[in-house]
């Protein structure tokens, strides 16, 4: 429910409208019913006051007209007054009480005449005191009539009356507001039902309006989502001339300009990649000719003038370097173009590592560096593109030998349930933190002044990194100046799986000791 409220703009708008609408219906209904009740009461009150006045007049006339000699005749008179007052005049029956004011000599035999079903609670003491204090005037108060379970509002009007022989009396007339209450309840019920209808109407209307407003926004949001997912052709329908049409129009304009920009950049970078690839391809044929010619010259250098021999050697070396550079450029441009198709096959990683170590032997011999292989005596198989992994290892090995200062280079192999790892570690010069950050950058060299015997292209590690990610693997590096450098390659055993952790620690154990 809360999530719906959070997610759906429509739900939020409808709920808010219902809450606000409900509040206003309550306020209006409350005000209406209060002012109605008030006006009913005022009407009844003025009616009651008029009737009471008339009643008092008639009582006083009656008393004045009769000749009262003793208590008995008085009692008879008074007894007849009350029932006559009960029925005379007025729309609804009223109740009557003629009470003797307290603080006078007790009359024998006398009884205060009271309507039969009148509850004396309807005549509170405060009213009586007030009535006694205000002779010649009518005094009133609203009261609650009826039993405990259902109270009916009423008005009690009282006035002092002086009766010969008997002394001071108070005449009270109690008017019931049952009819008014009933009418008010009727109106209130009507108001409540009307309010509920109104609320439902408001909810429906707000739903419809919100839908109309939100639907285009939702469409725009969906279109934006589609565009962000790369479907640049997505557009919104433009209808009418309102603000929503403006939104759709602006959105479409934005999408179009975005699309042109992206397509322009895309074609630009495609052109650039094509250029690198084309140049590399075009260079191959002349390079082949140069290479063959250089070889012929180099192999016959003994016949050359001694001053030309060195030139022939330099030519040969540089052609080889050019060759390596070109093939690395081609490989990286293949990766950039996304044109690399790996050939996965299950291989024993130990055999691949041994092959790489063997192929690097000329370099390790010339640098007088031994390469140690540490691996468990078990089959360590993984689905790999063998040629790429062997090239990668050869690359790591030649770097390690190059920077290893002649100290032994260690190749360690490990495995766990889903992954294999190969660590190539040297105990050479190492690298600083700044150097480490750039180690996989293209054409970057740790130390340009350093003499290189291999003549690396500067693309080796960049290609190695691509090779590793082609296998969904990791190529990580750890290094510390004057301690050594370690590259760790972690590959999933199955080409479709994902690796969570590497079987070998980083930094390697041999450097920690």
């Amino acid at each position, binding site marked *: 429910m809360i999530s719906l409220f959070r997610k759906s703009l429509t739900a939020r708008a409808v709920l808010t409208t219902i809450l606000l609408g409900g509040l206003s219906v309550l306020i209006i209904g409350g005000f209406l019913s209060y002012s109605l009740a008030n006006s009913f009461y005022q009407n009844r009150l003025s009616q009651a006051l008029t009737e009471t006045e008339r009643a008092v007049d008639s009582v006083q006339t009656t008393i004045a007209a009769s000749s009262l000699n003793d208590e008995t005749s008085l009692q008879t008179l008074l007894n007849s007054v009350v029932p006559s007052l009960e029925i005379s005049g007025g729309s609804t029956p009223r109740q009557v009480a003629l009470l003797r004011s307290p603080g006078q000599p007790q009359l024998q035999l006398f009884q205060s005449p009271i309507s039969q079903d009148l509850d004396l609670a309807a005549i509170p003491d405060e009213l009586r005191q007030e009535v006694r204090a205000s002779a010649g005037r009518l005094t009133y108060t609203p009261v609650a009539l009826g039993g405990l379970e259902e109270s009916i509002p009423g008005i009690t009007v009282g006035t002092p009356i002086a009766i010969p022989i008997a002394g001071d009396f108070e005449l009270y007339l109690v008017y019931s507001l049952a009819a008014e209450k009933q009418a008010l309840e009727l109106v209130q019920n009507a108001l409540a039902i009307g309010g509920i209808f109104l609320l439902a109407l408001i909810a429906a209307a707000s739903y419809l309006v919100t839908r109309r407003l939100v639907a285009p926004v939702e469409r725009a949001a969906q279109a934006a989502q589609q565009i962000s997912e790369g479907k640049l052709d997505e557009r919104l329908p433009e209808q009418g001339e309102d603000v929503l049409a403006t939104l759709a129009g602006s959105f479409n304009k934005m999408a179009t300009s975005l699309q042109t920009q992206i397509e322009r950049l895309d074609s630009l970078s495609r052109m650039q990649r094509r250029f690198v690839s084309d140049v590399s*391809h075009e260079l191959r044929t002349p390079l082949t000719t140069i290479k063959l010619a250089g*070889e*012929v010259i180099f192999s016959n250098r003994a016949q050359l003038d001694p001053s030309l021999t060195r030139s022939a050697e330099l030519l040969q070396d540089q052609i080889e370097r050019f060759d390596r550079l070109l093939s690395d450029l081609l490989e990286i441009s293949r990766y950039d173009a996304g044109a690399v*198709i790996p050939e996965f096959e299950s291989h024993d990683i130990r055999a691949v590592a041994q092959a790489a170590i063997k192929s690097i032997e000329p370099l390790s011999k010339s640098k007088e560096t031994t390469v140690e292989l540490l691996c468990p005596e078990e089959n360590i198989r993984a689905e790999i593109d063998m*040629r790429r992994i*062997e090239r990668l290892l050869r690359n790591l090995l030649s770097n390690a030998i190059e920077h290893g200062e002649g100290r032994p280079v260690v190749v360690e192999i490990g495995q766990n349930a889903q992954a294999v790892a190969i660590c190539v570690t040297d105990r050479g010069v190492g690298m600083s933190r700044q150097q480490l950050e750039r180690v996989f950058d293209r054409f970057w060299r740790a130390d340009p002044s350093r003499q290189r015997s291999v003549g690396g292209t500067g693309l080796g590690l960049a290609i190695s990194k691509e090779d590793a990610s082609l296998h969904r693997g990791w190529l990580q590096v750890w290094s510390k100046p004057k301690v050594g450098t370690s590259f760790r390659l972690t590959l999933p055993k199955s080409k479709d799986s994902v690796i969570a952790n590497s079987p070998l620690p980083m930094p390697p154990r041999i450097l920690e000791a």
Partner: protein
Amino acid sequence: MSHRILVVDDDDALREMVGLVLSQSGYSPVFAADGVSAVETFREQNPDLVLLDIMLPGQSGIEVCRSIRAFSGVPIVMLTAKGDTDDVVAGLEAGADDYVVKPHNGAELVARIRARLRPIADDPSVVQVGPLTLDPKTFEVKRGSAVLSLTPLEFKLLHTLASKPQQVFSREMLLEQVWGYQYKADTRLVNVHVQRLRSKVEEDPENPKIVMTVRGHGYRAGSDSQ
């Protein structure tokens, strides 16, 4: 007598240079600059081997390869400027025996040519495999009395497998013994040629009885005991 080699390449300098290298190694080169003249020159000169560039103007090297294979089993070595998978496989499927990736060096090129011109079998005795009879003296493969036409390379591949029917040959072993590679090479050479060989010698290439696959290891010749 020196072997005659047809060099097909559209780049004049490279063609001439390859010719120089071949002459130095004792071969007699003949040349063609495009696909159409390559097939014509082939018919006129009847070379012992073709060095064929894949990227040719007009008719591509792959088409040239196919047209030569239609009437001749002479070894074809492709020169490919792309090391890309598609090109190599297409060339091999069109019937090329081997390929060299540009830029190559002279020694590599000559080694490939030498391997392809080497005699097919040292032992001239007739070998039997399933219903087939292989005669290394005439390079003939017969099923009963019907002669099957195999290229020398296909013959050598089948002969190598058939001479040791009990042995399983890994792809690397076949690359070494049939193609003459001393170090690891492209195992697709083996895969493609086994497919081509099967399509010629098997009655049902989908269900081979003569060149059997040993899963995870390589191939072996089918024997009657199986």
